[in-house]
């Protein structure tokens, strides 16, 4: 151990004898520059992260802009109750869960399969080109992605033109509730599959090459090597990401859906976060929508805790 660390360690040892306040005072003086640097960071987190948490109190209040968070009258769990009794409640829960379920079924395995296939490409140059192209959509803004989608699936758009070539009737994709999830998930896969594969490719690059040599000596072909070496090698990464995914089953971001949906497709498209947006930001029903948001956060929080506990139990990997 270096002299300076020893010096700090001895200071810490001396600290142990003194009262907590003295210790803290001494630490604040000793590390004054560090705390000075931390000051804006702490202020930022206090205002913009803990501020809204305090603001969650309005979920239990009849919030009026003039009264403020503290001054508004309490209403207890009235907002929660009216949400649970709302006839859209089950539709919101169902849509939120189903979109996540389909993502788990299609969007989750897609990057794994792509990574496995990329790993089998012999020409390194070709592999690099494919990777570069497949990462590209990740950097396109969601507005442009949805804008392109809207244009392509329009009545006279690219997709319907192709369907017409095969003599099929045009489909009003964005007006049909039945198509919403397919469009949402497939455009998500289109945008994210390449980028998502990076993490698995990175995991593959850490696999010991001698394992492949050993497998080859034992007569394993490429298929066998993939099954017995590559897949087990990336399994920890897959498990972690899977658990993270399951942990976020109850949350779907509103940003993309708000761009894609319309009242005709609310039946399948409306999720909790978009409902909060409509009720709160557009409808200014702050107390109620904050309660709906809080309900969603609490369920998500419980799920992620559960996921982390399971992750700790089944593997050494945990999120924190």
């Amino acid at each position, binding site marked *: 151990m*270096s002299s300076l660390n020893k010096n700090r360690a001895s200071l810490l040892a001396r600290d142990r004898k003194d009262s907590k306040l003295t210790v*803290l005072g001494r630490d604040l003086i000793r590390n004054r*520059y*560090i*705390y000075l*640097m*931390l000051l*804006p*960071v*702490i202020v*930022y*987190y206090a205002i*913009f*992260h*803990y501020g*809204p948490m*305090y*603001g969650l109190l*309005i979920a239990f209040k009849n919030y009026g*802009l003039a009264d403020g968070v503290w001054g508004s009258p309490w209403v207890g769990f009235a907002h929660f109750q009216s949400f649970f009794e709302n006839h859209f409640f089950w539709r919101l829960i169902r849509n939120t869960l189903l979109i996540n379920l389909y993502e788990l079924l299609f969007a989750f395995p897609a990057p794994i399969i792509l990574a496995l*296939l990329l790993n089998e490409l012999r020409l390194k140059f*070709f592999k690099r080109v*494919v990777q570069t192209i497949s*990462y*590209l*959509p990740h*950097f*396109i*803004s*969601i*507005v*442009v992605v949805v*804008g*392109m989608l809207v244009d392509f699936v329009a009545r006279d758009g*690219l997709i319907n*033109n*192709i369907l017409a*070539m095969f003599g099929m009737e045009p489909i009003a994709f964005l007006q049909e509730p039945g198509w919403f999830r397919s469009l949402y998930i497939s455009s998500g896969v*289109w945008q994210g599959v390449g*980028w998502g594969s*990076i993490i698995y490719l*990175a*995991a593959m690059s850490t696999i010991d090459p001698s394992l492949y*040599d050993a497998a*080859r000596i034992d007569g394993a*072909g*490429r*298929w066998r090597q993939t099954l017995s070496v590559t897949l087990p090698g990336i399994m920890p990464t897959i498990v*972690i990401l899977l658990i993270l995914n399951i942990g976020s089953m109850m949350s779907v971001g*509103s*940003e993309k859906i708000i761009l894609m949906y319309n009242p005709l497709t609310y039946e399948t498209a409306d999720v909790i976060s978009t409902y*909060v947006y409509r009720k*709160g*930001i557009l409808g200014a029903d702050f107390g109620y*929508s*904050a309660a709906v*948001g809080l309900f*969603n*956060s609490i369920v998500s929080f419980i799920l992620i805790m559960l996921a982390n506990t399971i992750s700790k139990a089944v593997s050494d990997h945990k*999120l924190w």
Partner: protein
Amino acid sequence: MTYKRSVGESIFSWFNVGFMLLLCTVTLYPFIYILFASLSDPTEMARFRGLLLFPKGFSLEAYKAVLENPMILVGYRNTLYYVVIGTAINLVMTTLGAYALSRQGVLLKNPIMFLIVITMVFNGGLIPSFLLVNSLGLLNSAWALLLPGAINSFNLIIMRTAFQGIPVSLEESARIDGANDWVILTRIILPLSLPVIAVMILWYTVGHWNSYFSALIYLRDRELFPLQLILREILISNSTDNMMTGAATSDRADIGVTIKYATIIVSTLPILLIYPFLQKYFVHGVLIGALKE
């Protein structure tokens, strides 16, 4: 070590290459279609049905209309402003936090880190954040886009991890020479952390360039709108009518079609152009983030 490839494996290899070519086509064709369509003659494009394999006729009318559109120019200017100022704020704040939280022997380090991690799993949500911005008087001001996202906690942790990887001995020898934390940060840590700083600049920049949601909820004044919000109006709310004031009356309806495509190209071009050169940094960043897990 060589081994013979079985017939099945050869077939697979060809299938695999074919699949990759298909993937590239599916990924790139939408961009190519839009590029060709934007360069097409508006009247021909309006009547065109099917797969576009080359521009239909040639016309720069749409680009002219887009570049003459005052809202697009205002949006572009605002976005550049938000990107530059926003990324600068992000960098300063993230660096300060990452440095302070990566030092050894700071008593309150772990409690503060814990409080930061909590915000990653639990947050107040949309409505309380909106009301906070409102009560701070930031509604309808540029600060509403710049301050609430000043630090991305994931980025903070990635940067902190990178700082922790720098040998402590460098810091110690500087300290013996009388350097304080500010000097250590600016003279030792930052010059040794250029790759992670590049990643941060790129991620924050792309984030600001592409974001529309904060602007959607916090801004009312059209003079403050970033490009993405203008794009949303043109591409999704279909208000190309607003844009046609500059075009000749006869082909108004037609040019609306190509204007959309030209708008996409104009707004996405900066990212498409710099992307191939910066790709390795993006990937590098993902790997730093992955190592943390």
